[in-house]
């Protein structure tokens, strides 16, 4: 075997294998090379993204734990904290959607309870090819079933999310799962081995060959041959997860645990190496003691297995016996498999025989790469294209077609399959508002969460599009009355070795950085998923770049919150923020004219922050209980959704947009726009607040009746609420059968 072949067999380049040899002072054996290969994979080591990710703002007074741990943690007040993180399971879900998605939920929940928090909610951001295609429906079905079977059984509610459809995801769906957990400040746990002498405890499922090489699999191009990689997809056991969760939380409460980490990507290798690294220590690990479900597994297989529902703990000094007894009470397999040592090495033993001797620091410091990115010429041309599309003569029909866009349409058929109420904290249910809202029992506080991205915006202009994702996520939180606190991001991109993809990644991170700074939402954790692509003719093309933003915020008083549905007849419909939308990169252009072109609308982050602050203040002071942000499909779609959700109509005049194209006024998109509905005197108060903040504000009309009635500069049209409802519900009901 040539050096090149040997390196490739472990997922390393020849130069990387050379660096491993330098670190060791000798050639690595296969076990050592394999462990390095897994930890230096893109999935574990972030070697292509790390230099870019350093740009992201990660600090703020609210941050209790930034990136680098199992999950980020922010302060929500009253001594309470929220741990949250988002992670992708794209490649496994493409190969086996049910288990791919299920294990995605399992992994992210373990990250949350590894921080010491009790998981309280899951949100997902999903993307598929169009639902008219049977294979895409198969994937959608499978992913929804996987999330449902896992989350429901563990008993953590799935409270929100988004689902988008575009042909670029047909072979490579995106499954990004975000989880949140609550805890007291003093309950934070960390992924560290603690002190020399501590016992390293393995607990959970036995180790098998499932998920072997998953980290390397996730870091390679997805292709036709990937079907043969099915053993790289793991199988989830939510029952085991529930036992692990309860056992771990009880063990923390009894001070039996020094440090804890989930065995995620690259399994035992990464968990033990990372825990040792954070403490600056080493571990002697006895592989013969690792519980196995298969015979004849090699040492490397044991180290790299991604069998699910396994945690690595270190016992608090002197409490090992109690810890093992507690784990046994919860009917879990637990085994002391190693000892923390001061030597800074990861030494792997079979009994007394030393199989491998690895430097912990080097394992955790993979080589990183920066490259030059170049913008794809065709995308640049499309962005600059002059848009000349005819104005529709049937705005009512156009509105219904937009509501029938599967990306906009109601997702109820999906979220009905998720238990969204278990744990009895869910105050705002999926679909009722722009963000989910949970109460924190025993406090007046609420926690809001959302996930967001408009991949078309990012594709056409990555920097601006990524900033839009942050702005919209913050707007969603503001629309329920929450103050945004922090971000977890999931960067889904193509092959970073292609200059066009690297450009997208680079630019998107810049956009995230700018917007997170401006809106005071530091990034406290996240995940990168590269090599997402689809077949196009003879070659492969990257998916639309999709930097999904998960955001968490706090409501100081849960009784003061807003949802989108119109609640009373006679409320004033108020639009705050800049009035007119634009056609570029809009859902309307795509859906009605088949065009993905033009520039996404410009984003003024100061205006965005001011508009959100006004909306938030009005809700938090109790002036307003009905708010909805204007996003995909523009103002007309936003108004229709408020009517649908409230089960009542409204009449509005778009006269303030005199002189503009009618379709831009109705369906054009722009950031920093929020529609409020308020009783008369509250409306005056809202207008006064807008004036004081220098935020534009327009009275559009009034709620009531059983139809959406719109007067524009070109005439008037009306659509019964019942017709809006029918169109809005059809696509996903049809797709899920």
């Amino acid at each position: 075997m040539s050096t090149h072949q040997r390196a490739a067999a472990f997922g390393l380049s020849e130069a990387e294998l050379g660096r491993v040899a330098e670190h060791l002072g000798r050639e690595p054996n296969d076990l050592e090379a394999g462990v390095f290969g897994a930890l230096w994979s893109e999935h574990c080591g972030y070697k292509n993204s790390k230099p870019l990710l350093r740009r992201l703002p990660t600090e703020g007074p609210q941050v209790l734990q930034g990136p680098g741990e199992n999950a980020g943690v922010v302060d929500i007040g009253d001594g309470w904290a929220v741990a949250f993180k988002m992670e992708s399971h794209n490649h496994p879900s493409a190969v086996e959607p049910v288990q791919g998605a299920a294990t995605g939920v399992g992994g992210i929940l373990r990250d949350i309870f590894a921080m010491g928090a009790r998981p309280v909610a899951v949100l997902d951001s999903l993307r598929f090819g169009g639902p008219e295609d049977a294979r895409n429906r198969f994937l959608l079905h499978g992913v929804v079933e996987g999330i449902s079977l896992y989350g429901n059984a563990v008993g953590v509610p799935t409270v929100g999310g988004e689902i988008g459809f575009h042909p670029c995801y047909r072979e490579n769906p995106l499954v990004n799962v975000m989880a949140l957990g609550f805890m007291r400040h003093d309950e934070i746990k960390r992924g560290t081995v603690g002190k020399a002498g501590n016992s390293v405890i393995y607990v959970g499922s036995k180790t098998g060959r499932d998920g072997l090489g998953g980290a390397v699999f996730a870091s390679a191009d997805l292709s036709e041959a990937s079907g043969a990689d099915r053993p790289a997809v793991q199988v989830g056991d939510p029952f085991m997860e529930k036992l692990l969760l309860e056992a771990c939380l009880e063990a923390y409460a009894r001070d039996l645990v020094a440090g804890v980490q989930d065995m995620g990507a690259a399994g035992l290798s990464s968990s033990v190496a990372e825990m040792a690294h954070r403490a600056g220590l080493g571990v002697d690990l006895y592989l013969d003691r690792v519980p196995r479900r298969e015979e004849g597994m090699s040492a490397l297989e044991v180290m790299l297995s991604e069998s699910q529902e396994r945690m690595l703990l270190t016992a608090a000094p002197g409490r090992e016996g109690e810890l093992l007894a507690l784990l046994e009470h919860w009917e879990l397999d637990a085994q002391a498999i190693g000892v923390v040592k001061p030597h800074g090495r990861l030494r792997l033993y079979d009994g007394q025989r030393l199989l491998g001797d690895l430097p912990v620091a080097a394992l955790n410091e993979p080589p990183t790469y920066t490259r030059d990115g170049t913008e794809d010429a065709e995308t640049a041309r499309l962005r600059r294209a002059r848009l000349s599309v005819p104005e529709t003569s049937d705005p009512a029909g156009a509105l219904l077609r937009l509501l029938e866009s599967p990306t906009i349409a109601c997702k109820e058929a999906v979220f009905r399959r998720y238990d969204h109420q278990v744990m009895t904290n869910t105050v705002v249910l999926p679909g009722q508002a722009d963000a989910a809202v949970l109460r924190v029992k025993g406090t007046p506080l609420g926690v809001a969460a959302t996930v967001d991205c408009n991949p078309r915006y990012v594709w056409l202009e990555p920097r601006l599009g990524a900033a839009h994702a942050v702005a919209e996520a913050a707007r969603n939180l503001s629309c329920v009355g929450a103050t945004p606190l922090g971000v977890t991001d999931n960067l889904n991109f193509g092959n970073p070795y292609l200059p066009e993809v690297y450009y997208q990644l680079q630019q998107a991170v810049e956009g995230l950085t700018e917007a997170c700074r401006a809106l005071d939402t530091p990034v406290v954790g996240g995940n990168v998923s590269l090599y997402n692509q689809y077949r196009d003719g003879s070659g492969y093309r990257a998916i639309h770049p999709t930097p999904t933003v998960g955001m968490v915020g706090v409501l100081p008083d849960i009784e003061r919150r807003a949802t989108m549905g119109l609640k009373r007849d006679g409320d004033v419909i108020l639009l705050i923020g800049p009035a007119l939308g634009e056609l570029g990169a809009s859902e309307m252009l795509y859906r009605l004219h088949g065009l993905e072109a033009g520039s996404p609308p410009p984003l003024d982050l100061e205006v965005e922050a001011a508009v959100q602050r006004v909306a938030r203040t009005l809700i938090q002071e109790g002036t307003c209980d009905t708010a909805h942000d204007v996003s995909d499909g523009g103002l007309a779609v936003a108004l229709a959704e408020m009517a649908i959700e409230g089960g009542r109509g409204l009449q509005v005049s778009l006269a303030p947009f005199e002189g503009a194209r009618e379709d831009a006024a109705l369906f054009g998109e722009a950031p920093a726009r929020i529609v409020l509905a308020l009783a008369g005197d509250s409306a005056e108060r809202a207008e006064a607040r807008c004036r004081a903040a220098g935020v534009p504000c327009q009275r559009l009309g009034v709620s009531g009746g059983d139809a959406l009635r719109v007067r524009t500069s070109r005439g008037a049209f009306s659509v019964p609420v019942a017709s809006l409802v029918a169109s809005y519900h059809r696509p996903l009901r049809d797709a899920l059968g």
Partner: protein
Amino acid sequence: MTIAVVRFPGSNCDDDARHAFEFVLGAPVRYVWHRETSLGRADAVVLPGGFSYGDYLRGGALAALSPVMEAVRSFAAHGGPVLGICNGWQILTEAHLLPGQLARNPALHFKCQDVWLRVERDDLPFTRRYRKDQLLRLPIAHNEGRFYLDEATLARLEQRGQVVFRYVDAAGEPTAEANANGSVGNIAGVTNEAGNVLGMMPHPERAVETLLGSADGAPLLQGVLDSLAGGRPAA
């Protein structure tokens, strides 16, 4: 007065039941692990929802064989109130403390939504705070909630008034559309002949605070407490 909430491995509404009884209604709750052979001091028993043993065999089938179930059986035989919610009803059914069987939903997938229920009798500890024919709004969340039994047994059940709740529409009619999971007779909850064991699919413990949308489940739990307090509504 103590409410025993039995925890099986995989129970996941145990804490919701505890929250409802203890923090909302002020009645102390004690967890009883499924391996225990005695309920200890308990005035009422709750078998909570969840996925006991992962429900890998059949909802409730393994939990029905847990050591604690002998104690539950004996507690029920002595007339103590036993409430099985969702998976708890499946367990009571598998343990033959209640008649019938709970099969998979006809749609073959999990369903989480609010439903209308009609109260069929108001003379049980669980329903004494309701009126007969009263409509309740409660959430369901299950995969295996389709109540089934053969026609002869169903007729006997109806005749003896063992049907406690039915799925109905907003007008109180037990229509096919309102039947959330295809249960025979739109049945959402049944009791034993003695009327001290209740199994139901909807979750009353999730509906005890208006903040979460409905408090229609609170009178059910409060009714149990009233009956324990000696027949008069507790203050």
